[in-house]
């Protein structure tokens, strides 16, 4: 079973601060996605990374895929209350046959005004 460990599990910071959350695994993934989920909603895709060492930026969010494609990080600059939510990383199982995503347990992020 491919497991994704996310840390920290919970994070509460003040508006304007920077933060980094991590997604780690002992397995190699063909790709890795980050989703954001708000209460009562389904997860919404933020980014997909597929190449080891890849860095993608989405406004104040910076995503990095580890060189060995086993880990990823999400860095948020100048966090805002609207960034509050559950951040999920999900690894592509890849290979032949049925595909699907393996999700981590998520990081619960609260940005206090």
């Amino acid at each position: 079973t491919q497991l994704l460990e996310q840390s920290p599990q919970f994070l509460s910071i003040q508006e304007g601060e920077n933060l980094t959350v991590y997604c780690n695994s002992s397995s190699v993934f063909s790709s890795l996605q980050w989703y954001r989920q708000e209460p009562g909603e389904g997860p919404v895709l933020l980014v997909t990374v597929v190449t080891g060492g890849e860095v993608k930026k989405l406004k104040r969010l910076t995503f990095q895929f580890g060189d060995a494609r086993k880990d990823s990080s999400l860095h948020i600059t100048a966090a805002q209350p609207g960034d509050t939510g559950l951040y999920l990383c999900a690894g592509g199982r890849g290979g032949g046959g049925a595909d699907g995503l393996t999700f981590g347990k998520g990081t619960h992020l609260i940005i206090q005004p």
Partner: protein
Amino acid sequence: GAGVSQSPRYKVAKRGQDVALRCDPISGHVSLFWYQQALGQGPEFLTYFQNEAQLDKSGLPSDRFFAERPEGSVSTLKIQRTQQEDSAVYLCASSGSRRTGRNGELFFGEGSRLTVL
């Protein structure tokens, strides 16, 4: 519709009752997934369809869980003789890609919250 639609949004069942949860994916999407999300946790994979074929049901927790997608569009997740540990949000997602997880995006519904008393 424009997105993935799930019904009912909320379901309360007495222990031992059967329940059926419906998912209406984005029109034309080939792949359909069911996930179970416990409170405060990430989604856990249950089963996967490519068109009408159920290609992977390895995540279904017991033989009380059954999913179907007979015409390759709408899917139903059925739980027989519900137990308290079945209480969770059941998320449906669809994708236009046969190789979701590589470059494809999963589009999730809002989920069906099941509470078993």
